Every structure is written in structure tokens, then in C-alpha cells.
């Protein structure tokens, strides 16, 4: 992303992600989080949620991965997220991650970009809301 083109009130490009049970299962192995609400459809069906749901941290990983695609290494060494989990993401959901730049601080060495962030499903229910900030080093 061309950082110099960013300005306040600008929208970040939208990013879409399909939630798949296969990925939830893989995430359970990678994170050692085997809570049956995520990976056991029969168990999950009997709970209030009525079916399996993605790990909140998996959804957040999608957000972070998207930020890495936009801001590269700057995200890994100067990114921050402050979010609330609002609703579960379920297999088959298509999540839209979007953001709007609220503030830019431009100093000699860095540009610090703040954004409102929302991740919503195909029904426009918010799954995650919050803010993100990234400090981008000037070349």
C-alpha cells in the first residue's frame, strides 16, 4: 500500500474471508485450543450457539493477516489492535473486514495511522469492532 496516499476519512480497501470448518480445525491444532464448541458439530449443536463457531482469535488472525498485507513488516513491529468480539463467526459465513482512517500523525521518522475497524458477516452483523493503529517508518 502506498502510505503517502493515505489521508483521514479514507476507507481501507475491503477484504473478504470465508469461514471454513476445515480452517477452524487446523487452527485448533495450531493453537492447541480444542474446545469442542469449535470443532465438534454434534456437541456444538446441543449448545446455545447451535453449531460450531470459529475461535475469536482465528477471526482476529484474519484481521491481522489483512493488516500485514497492507502494511508489511511495519504491522509486525508497530501494529496494535483494540477490539471487542461482538458475535460468533460460523462456518459458511463470509466476513467483510473494513476500516476507515480516523487520524494520521506525521512526524519526522514515522507516520502513525489510526483506523476504526469492523468485521461483519454477510447479514451485516458485527463480529468484531474496534480500532487499529500502525506506526509506519518513513524510508
Amino acid at each position, binding site marked *: 500500500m502506498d502510505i503517502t496516499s493515505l489521508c483521514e476519512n479514507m476507507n481501507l480497501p475491503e477484504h473478504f*474471508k470465508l469461514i471454513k470448518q476445515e*480452517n*477452524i480445525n*487446523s*487452527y485448533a*491444532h*495450531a*493453537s*492447541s*485450543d480444542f474446545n469442542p464448541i469449535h470443532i465438534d458439530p454434534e456437541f456444538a449443536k446441543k449448545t446455545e450457539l447451535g453449531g460450531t463457531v470459529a475461535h*475469536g*482469535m*482465528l477471526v*482476529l*488472525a*484474519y484481521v*491481522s*493477516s489483512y493488516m*500485514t*498485507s497492507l502494511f*508489511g*513488516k511495519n*504491522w*509486525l*513491529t*508497530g*501494529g*496494535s*489492535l*483494540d*477490539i*471487542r*468480539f461482538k458475535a460468533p463467526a460460523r462456518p459458511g459465513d463470509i466476513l467483510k473486514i473494513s476500516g476507515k482512517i480516523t487520524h494520521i500523525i506525521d512526524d519526522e521518522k514515522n507516520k502513525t495511522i489510526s483506523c476504526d475497524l469492523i468485521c461483519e458477516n454477510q447479514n451485516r452483523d458485527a463480529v468484531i469492532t474496534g480500532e487499529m493503529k500502525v506506526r509506519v517508518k518513513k524510508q
Partner: protein
Amino acid sequence: MINKIKYEKLAVGLEFPPSYFSVDFNTLSAYLKATEDSSELYDEGIVPPMAIAALAMKALMGQFEILPGTVHTSQQLTFLNIARVGEKLISIAKVTRKIARGKFHMFSISINVQKENGEIVITGELGFVLPLLQEK
């Protein structure tokens, strides 16, 4: 077997015993597959910060009793330095808030992950809500 700290014993200021872990190539590969993250940055053995956060959280969750109905409601994370495959990491966590509001309890835990040399990799705070327990 680890004795988990009872929920009633969680008090503001309580520090959990540090957790030590590292990320190997198999875990990194599984994580990247699960998150469908194909960034070239990780070809060099850099570990995605969210993978570190997930493993630090997993270690933390093993240390205290999670009562039925507990929901992870909020997450704050700041990424400060890169960690690579095989690097030894230390996670340090502390209870920062515990309050009753209406029919619910809310508590927060701060978490710092650092390298052996003290360089901080990520810092953050997790927020939880759970239904207020009935007095027995």
C-alpha cells in the same frame, strides 16, 4: 499435573507463573495453513504475532479455572518486535481488573510476551465476562 488457580482466587495484581514456549516450523506451518496467510514475510521464519498471542493465551488459560459461561469479549494487542521460529519466549500475565456489574463479572488480564534477552515481542490485555455466581 498443574493445579489451576480457582476463579475466586483471581485478584487484581495476581501474577501468574511465567509460561515458556517457542514456535517450531510445524506449528508455524499449521498456523499459516489455518489462517490462509501466504505473506512472504513468513518464509524467513518470522512468526506471525497473532500466532504468538494465541500460544501465550493458551498457556495462560491452562493456569486458571475457566467457569462455564465465561466469554472472551475483548482483546487489546500491540506488536513491538519480531520473533522467529525456535526463539524462546516467555509469557507473563497479571490480573488487572475484576468487578461485578449487574448480573455479570468482568475481569481482565494483561499479558506480555518477551524474549530471553528481555526484548518485548507483544503486549496486550484480554477481557472476559461471565455470569455472576449465586452465593451458596
